[in-house]
């Protein structure tokens, strides 16, 4: 027990002691609602039979320009590209929150298209009403097409449908964001509301390189989630789950540090394979292996229909190793891992972040970036990879709120705003 821990324990107990030992009387409601139906997940598929045409129509018609707040930032073209930035796309979308020292993506109040070279805001959108936050963002390979997930404000407890030990999730919805660099304008299109059922959360998501398919890990709990691929052209969907492993879950809740992460799900460049983190085999810890799912093949079992492509070395103690991010490079040959290693045993616990590359063919592990100590309170995120993974954009690889380009082992910082929670190229 350290001095800090002792001080903390004493402060908590003293503060709790301010509450007197005579609680107010319990006021129970007059009648119980024992016939109230349970949660409907995953029976939500009922919409799909009749709503698919509507969903497709919604893609075209549900323009929400009225709720856009677009800030024009000139032509959107960047004029200078220092050598370190030449290999990175010129624009990215950042989720931002004002005056928030420890931003996490769930509280972002705006999505900003920014220039990589200067950090300048080229366009800005806010969540269309009734939504108030953007919780996550993902990008297609054209660097102009993005998908955001927007969330409503949470309801008071008495109105929450998810009462009980299950977390309550406020309603949320996907939005397609398109940026036109010629005009500097951004537009939002609402995707079908039924993509995200009531009282469920999007844990992580990834837009396919051609922008036609959206993969998302959605569920009521981290352990109850499904990996779903939505066809954005038709509104149809396919779902995979760990049928043979009840305690397994795809990525969500495991990668990142809660919230909707940009580096938890990823596509290969051909748009046929989806990388996610799951167990090596049934009964193994859910975060032990990066698996590759061929979405063109039939089946709905995440374990049976996918194959492992990267695992920690066997000598690693899994309880001490945490993968915070894992993406496959577009060429499908390399997995880039953000690994966090916590010390075992006696306090104080030390945490170390490392950026690893693992060869899919050979399993060879290369340490790209080893931080002896945690770089501030933020963990690293991999926000962009070129085809081979030799050019990455990462945040949190240096102390403070920072981001930079890793070209091989050379790090080039890029302009970064302390209000940025996460970003995607």
């Amino acid at each position: 027990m350290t001095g800090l821990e002792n001080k903390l324990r004493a402060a908590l107990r003293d503060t709790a002691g301010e509450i007197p030992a005579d609680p107010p009387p319990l006021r129970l409601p007059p009648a119980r609602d024992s016939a109230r139906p349970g949660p409907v997940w995953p029976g939500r598929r009922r919409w799909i039979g009749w709503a698919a045409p509507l969903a497709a129509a919604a893609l075209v018609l549900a323009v929400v320009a009225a709720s856009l707040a677009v800030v024009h930032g000139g032509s959107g073209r960047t004029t200078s590209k220092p050598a370190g930035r030449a290999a990175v796309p010129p624009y990215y979308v950042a989720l931002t929150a004002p005056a928030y020292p420890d931003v996490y993506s769930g509280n972002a109040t705006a999505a900003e298209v920014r220039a990589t070279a200067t950090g300048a805001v080229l366009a800005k959108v806010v969540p269309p009403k009734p939504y108030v936050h953007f919780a996550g963002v993902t990008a297609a390979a054209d660097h102009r097409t993005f998908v955001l997930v927007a969330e409503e404000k949470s309801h008071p407890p008495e109105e929450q449908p998810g009462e009980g030990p299950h977390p309550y999730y406020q309603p949320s919805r996907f939005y397609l964001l398109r940026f036109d660099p010629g005009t500097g304008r951004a537009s939002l299109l609402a995707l079908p509301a039924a993509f995200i059922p009531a009282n469920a959360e999007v844990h992580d998501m990834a837009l396919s390189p051609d922008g036609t398919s959206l993969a998302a890990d959605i569920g009521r709990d981290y352990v109850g989630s499904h990996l779903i691929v939505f066809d954005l052209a038709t509104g149809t969907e396919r779902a995979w789950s760990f049928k043979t492993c009840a305690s397994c879950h795809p990525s969500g809740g495991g990668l990142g540090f809660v919230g909707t992460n940009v580096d938890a799900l990823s596509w290969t460049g051909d748009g046929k394979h989806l990388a996610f983190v799951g167990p090596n085999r049934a009964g193994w810890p859910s975060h032990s292996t990066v698996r590759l799912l061929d979405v063109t093949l039939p089946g709905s079992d995440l374990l049976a229909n996918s194959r492992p492509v990267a695992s920690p070395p066997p000598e690693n103690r899994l309880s001490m190793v945490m993968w915070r991010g894992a993406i496959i490079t577009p060429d499908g040959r390399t997995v880039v891992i953000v690994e966090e290693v916590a010390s075992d045993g006696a306090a104080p616990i030390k945490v170390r972040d490392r950026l690893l590359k693992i060869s899919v063919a050979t399993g060879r592990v290369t340490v790209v970036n080893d931080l002896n100590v945690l770089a501030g309170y933020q963990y690293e995120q991999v926000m962009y990879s070129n085809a081979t993974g030799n050019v990455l954009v990462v945040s949190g690889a240096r102390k403070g709120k920072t981001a930079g380009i890793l070209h091989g082992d050379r790090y080039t910082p890029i302009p970064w705003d302390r209000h940025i929670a996460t970003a995607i190229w």
Partner: protein
Amino acid sequence: MESEELGGAAALSWTDSGWPEARGKPAADSAAAAVAALYQHHAVGLIRLAYLMLGDRAGAEDAVQDAFCGLYRHWDRLADRDRALAYVRSSVLNGCRSALRRRTTGRRLLTAYQPPTASAEAAVLGLEERQEVMRAVRRLPERQREALVLRFYLDLPEREIARLMGLRPSSVRSATARALKALGHALGEPS
């Protein structure tokens, strides 16, 4: 911690698991009696837990009331009544999370923690130091604060904290480490 909260006589006899025996009564009566007994034994501890999360007594009492009302409404659907305390503790934490989300971000972070009344003991222990620690705790991200309170106030094991927070034990360990690091930084101490 739970045994510390046994003030007053229990209305019902208790099983080894801490669950009151209330068999042989009409369902609604037994449910009300059982929930009331659970409240009698654990309300203070749960209000204190919510108070540490929210920093305001009225909000803490509301969160606990809501949790027990929810338990009562869903009594018939509670699969494992030996886990009723865990259920209601989860509900309290969910209520706290919701309450925190309802507050605006700026207000939540910019408003300094102010204990309502300083007790004599608090003065002896160093009120200023405690306030400084609690201000730093309240500036932590919600999940980190939750991890610290569950570990250093309730003394819950890591596995139970993980279950309550819906995270894996390694995530809890990491959240705790990050929280202590941030706390140490805020207080000018090595974590």
